[in-house]
């Protein structure tokens, strides 16, 4: 089985936000929630970089470790998913996540947050693959159809890579070797405790 990861080649990201839009549309993500976003660091200054960020599907995921009801699970592909039926909306995963991935629909005040929502790596949830219930809670399950996450698939500059960690790391390494530079695989050290030598 593959170990699915995301890799954003920040030297290629042009902050077009197509990944953000694709994600919102593909999964009909509720208003106010962004499973993916593009952050521009040092905007307007020399050396600025844009990074497309979502749930990184961490190795030994902190969200899963701190969840009081243990609603997270890791698929055979290394994708970190959760059950909205078990989630109590306590907000703990959101304190623990290094990437700001977990979000809550604002269905009421006084801490009665709705069920947590985050990137599913286009892999749905615990319901039957491609079922109506799965789509309503988690969005499309492209992985079950043999497709990769849409954000990366439609990235115009192929900055955002999704796929087996070793393969996308190899692609990135080759790019860096060929063009002679690379600002590194953002978030990899935090998420996977490894970096890609460049």
């Amino acid at each position, binding site marked *: 089985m593959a170990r699915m990861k995301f890799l954003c080649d*920040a*030297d290629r990201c042009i*902050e077009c*936000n197509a990944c*953000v839009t694709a994600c919102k549309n593909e999964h009909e993500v509720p208003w*106010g929630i*962004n499973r993916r*976003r*593009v*952050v*521009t*660091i*040092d*905007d307007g200054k*020399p*050396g*600025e*970089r*844009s*990074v497309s*960020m979502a749930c990184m599907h961490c190795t030994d995921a*902190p969200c899963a*470790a*701190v*969840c*009081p*009801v*243990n*609603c997270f699970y890791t698929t055979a592909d290394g994708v970190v998913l959760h059950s909205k*039926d*078990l*989630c*109590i*909306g*306590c*907000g*703990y995963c*959101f*304190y*623990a*996540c*290094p*990437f*700001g991935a977990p979000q809550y629909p604002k269905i009421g*005040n*006084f*801490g*009665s947050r709705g069920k947590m929502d985050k990137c599913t790596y286009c892999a749905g949830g615990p319901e039957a693959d491609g079922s109506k219930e799965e789509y309503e809670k988690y969005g499309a399950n492209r992985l079950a159809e043999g497709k990769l996450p849409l954000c990366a698939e439609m990235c115009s500059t192929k900055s955002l890579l999704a796929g087996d960690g070793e393969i996308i790391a190899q692609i990135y390494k080759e790019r860096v070797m060929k063009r*002679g*530079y*690379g*600002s*590194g695989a*953002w*978030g990899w*050290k*935090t998420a996977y405790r490894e970096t890609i030598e460049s």
Partner: protein
Amino acid sequence: MACETRNYLEEFMVSSARSIYLAVGALAFLLILTASAPSVAQQDRINPTASSVREQQLLQEFDRIQGRVSIPDQRSSVLMQPAGREWREFRTVALRWVGGIAIVGMLAVLVIFYLTRGMVRLESGRSGRTIVRFTAFERFVHWMTATCFIVLAVSGLNITFGRPLLLPLIGHGAFSEWSQWAKYAHNYLSFPFTIGVVLIFLMWIAGNIPNKVDVDWLKRGGGIVGHDHPPSYRFNAGQKAIYWIVVIGGGLVAATGYELMFPFYLSGIEGMQLAQMVHAIVAVLFVAVMLAHIYIGTIGMEGAFEAMGSGTVDVNWAREHHSLWLEEENARAEANARPGPAVTAAE
């Protein structure tokens, strides 16, 4: 036509030979140039990352990376904050140890104490006469706060200890259902609890300022270990400690709890991590202290529970545990309703 063509061809060959000489010359010149100044040529090669922002450097400098986003949710502009890792260690390891030791340790101490010392008896027996210790309003506030506290404590401990202890016993579905209701109870009952803490602070502040009598009381161990009865006003040093723990601890859990209940109103994630740590540590210690409070108010001391139950205590109980308070009350009663009995007879 053929002759003309040949002329053109000859001309072309001559001119191209010239240009080849020129090109070779230029190339040689360039070669000499590059050979003499290799550093200049290397600098011309583009490396856009030479001056670009770097992840590890930014993380070392600020402990988190923030930028700009073009979506409306400006809070998502924080790209990375690995500090959650320390918070995770606190939650999954440190807090469970601190809470476990504090609560199980306190229970163990209380059991051992009960087995060795037993219930603190009324040494002079019951007089049959009672005196009002807590008014109906005081008892209402106490029990409102106490009820909320127990629900808050159980639902809070569930968040920390439920997953390892209760979840394996009742299964995922039932545990999530219970935890969901516990979370609602925790959130909503925080409001009457906070009101209770504020009222406790206001209505009992007068009797809870530490004074010299407390020093003597503490030196004599509160009379708990032996069979001593050090004098005390309305509240002894132990009760004053409970009072200040409730006021300060309750204030802290309320403040940090509301910070967590209303995310981003007061702080970002790092502030909420800190708030959760303060909330949880104060709460588990609070629970441990309250176990001792419940013990001494029920099976730990004869005649103590009725103070908060019916609101009246036996005069002998008051004499043994709050002698100076009884004198004060008697003096006041005499001043108010002279001539008359100092204390009312029990019905």
